[in-house]
C-alpha cells in the first residue's frame, strides 16, 4: 500500500504540466485519466523517467460504455503499462466519442501496433498516425465492430461450404430457434446497489401488473 502511495506521488511529480487525475482504485491499482491530446506526452514521460520506467506495454483495452451511467463519452481506451524496475503496473484511461480518433503510440512501443489494430477491429476506434491500421482478428472483409454493445452476439452473417457452388459462401444468420437470453437475474437484488431508495421503489417488479387488477 505504501509502495502504491509513493508511486502515486512520483507520477504526480513527473506529470506536472499535464491536465490529469491520478487516483488509487479500491482494487489498489494506480489509475491515471488524461485527455487524448496529452496521451503521448504522458506515456513517453512515464516510459522514460528514471524514477518510473514503465518500459513494458502490457495491454490496450477498449471498453464500450454505452450501457453504463456516468460516462460522457462512448468509449474508454485503457492502456496498461508495467514497470519492470518498480515491479508494478498502472493504467491510463482515455475517453473518446464515436468516430473520434486517438493518437497512436506505436512510435513509443512497437508492441502497441497489434494491440491498437485489435481495438480498431473490435470497437472501430481509429488510431491517428498508425502505420498499418488493418483488422487483426476478424475475417477478411468483415463488416462491423463486434465488441460494441449494439452488435448482436450471434453476428450478422454465417459461413458455410456450398456443395453446388464449390466454395465457401456467406449468408445472413438464420437461427433455428430464437437466441435464448437466460435472464435469471433477481430483479430485487440489483436494487440494493442503487443509491436512492425512492428511485428503487419506482422500478417495476415482476408481478406488479397483477397487483392493480
Amino acid at each position, binding site marked *: 500500500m505504501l509502495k502504491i502511495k509513493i508511486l502515486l506521488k512520483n507520477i504526480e511529480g513527473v506529470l506536472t504540466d499535464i491536465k490529469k487525475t491520478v487516483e488509487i*482504485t*479500491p*482494487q489498489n*491499482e494506480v489509475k491515471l485519466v488524461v485527455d487524448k491530446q496529452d496521451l503521448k506526452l504522458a506515456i513517453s514521460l512515464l516510459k522514460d523517467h528514471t524514477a518510473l520506467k514503465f*518500459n*513494458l*506495454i*502490457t*495491454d490496450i*483495452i*477498449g*471498453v*464500450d460504455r454505452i*450501457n*453504463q451511467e456516468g460516462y460522457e463519452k462512448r468509449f474508454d481506451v*485503457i492502456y*496498461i503499462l508495467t514497470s*519492470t524496475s518498480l*515491479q*508494478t*503496473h498502472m*493504467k491510463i484511461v482515455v475517453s473518446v466519442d464515436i468516430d473520434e480518433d486517438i493518437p497512436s503510440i506505436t512510435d513509443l*512501443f*512497437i*508492441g502497441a*501496433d*497489434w*494491440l491498437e489494430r*485489435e481495438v480498431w477491429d*473490435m470497437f472501430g476506434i481509429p488510431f491517428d498516425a498508425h502505420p498499418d491500421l488493418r*483488422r*487483426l*482478428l*476478424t*475475417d477478411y472483409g468483415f463488416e462491423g465492430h*463486434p*465488441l460494441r454493445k449494439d*452488435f448482436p*452476439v450471434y453476428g450478422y452473417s454465417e459461413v458455410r461450404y456450398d456443395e453446388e457452388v464449390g466454395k465457401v459462401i456467406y449468408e445472413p444468420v438464420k437461427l433455428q430457434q430464437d437466441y435464448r*437470453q437466460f435472464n*435469471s*437475474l*433477481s430483479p430485487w*437484488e*440489483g436494487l440494493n*446497489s442503487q443509491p436512492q431508495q425512492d428511485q428503487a421503489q419506482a422500478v417495476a417488479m415482476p408481478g406488479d401488473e397483477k397487483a392493480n387488477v
Partner: protein
Amino acid sequence: MSTEIKNFRLNFGPQHPAAHGVLRLIVELDGERIERSEPHIGLLHRGSEKLMEDKAYNQNVPFFERMDYVSAINQPYAYVLAVEKLAGIQVPKRGQYLRMLVSELSRIGSHSLSMGALANDVGAITPLILGLEIRERISEFCERASGARMHGNYIRPGGVSFDMKQELLDDILTYMDDLTNDIQACDDLLSENRIFKQRTVDIGVISAKQALSYGFTGPNLRACGVEWDIRKSQPYDAYEEIDFNIAVSSDGDTYARYAVRLFEIRETIKIVRQLIKNMPAGRHKTDDEKFTNPKRKKMQSSMESLIHHFKLFSEGYHVPAGEVYESVEAPKGEFGVYVIADGTNKPYRVKVKTTSVPHLSALNELTKGHMLSDIPAILGSIDIVFGESDR
C-alpha cells in the same frame, strides 16, 4: 545481359504442420532468405470475450481453459483471481496451494511439449515422444484431481472444485523423481547436440530493449536477459512462501529460449516438491456458499444450502461494481484478465491479455534475414498457441 529476379512470395499456412496451429504467414523470399514475413492471425477467433459478457461469472471459467489448450489450467487462474478480488472472496490456504500445484504441473506439461515440438521441428524426434509422455502423465494427474484430462474446470472462484487425496499427492511426489530423469534425458539429447545447436544458436535474436517494446513476457523475455516473473514481482496466492529461482539467459536467441524452458522445468519440480511437502490441512475452497456449491449431503438436509445451490447454478452471484487487472505467470508468459463488473451477475467486459500476441507480432523482426527453414525453429521456440492469441 542481366535478368531481373523478382522476390518470391510464399503462403506459409494456414494449414501447415510446422505452424503449430492455424497461422497464415506471408513470407517474402529473396532466394531462400526471408525479406519480410507477415503473420495473419484470427483464424481461430471464436469471440470468447463477447460471449463472456453474456454469461454469469462462474460460467465463464471454462472459456479460459479453451484458450491456451496446452496449459489449460493456468488461464482461468487469472480470471478467478480477478473475480475474487472484485467480490472479496477469501480462499483458504489449502485451496491456494492446490491451485498453485496444478498450475505448476500444467507448466511442466506445456514446457515439455514445447521443447519436444521445437526439437521435432529441427529434426529430432525422440524429445517429442518424451515430451508427449510427460504431458500424458500430467494429464493423468489432472484427471485424478478434477475428472477430466485437459479441461477440468478445476480452479474456480473461491478455491478448487475438488480436494486432492493424500495418495494422489504422494503419487505426484514420486513421479517428480521419474520426471527429473526424463528431463535429464531430454537435456542429454539436445543441449550439447551439434545439429540442434547449429539450428538454434544465433537464430531469431532479439535484444532486451526491443523485447520490452514489443511487450514480450515469460520465458521469451527472460531469454533476453530481463529478470521478470510475475510469481516473484507481484506474487499471487502463496507464491511468497515458495523458494525458487528465475532462469535468465542473455543471448535472446532460439537456443536461449529452449535453455530457459529447460531450467524452468527443473525449478518447477522444486516448487511442486515444496508445495506437496508444506501442503496445509483444511478446506480446499471457501465455506461461503454464495460463491461455491454446498456439499450434496448438506443439501439434502438444509433448505438454505439447497437455495444456495439453485441460485449459484441459475443466477450466479452479484459482483460489486469495479475494474481490476489481474495477471498470472502462465507457461508462455504473462496472462492477464481485465474484468469490468457493473454490479450484476455478468461481467460488463472481460479483456484477455494474451501471451502469444506480442510474441507473434515480433515474428517479422525475429525471422528477418534468416533462411526459410528457420521459421519452424523460431515459431517452435516462441511457443505460441492460436486458441489463445485469437480468443
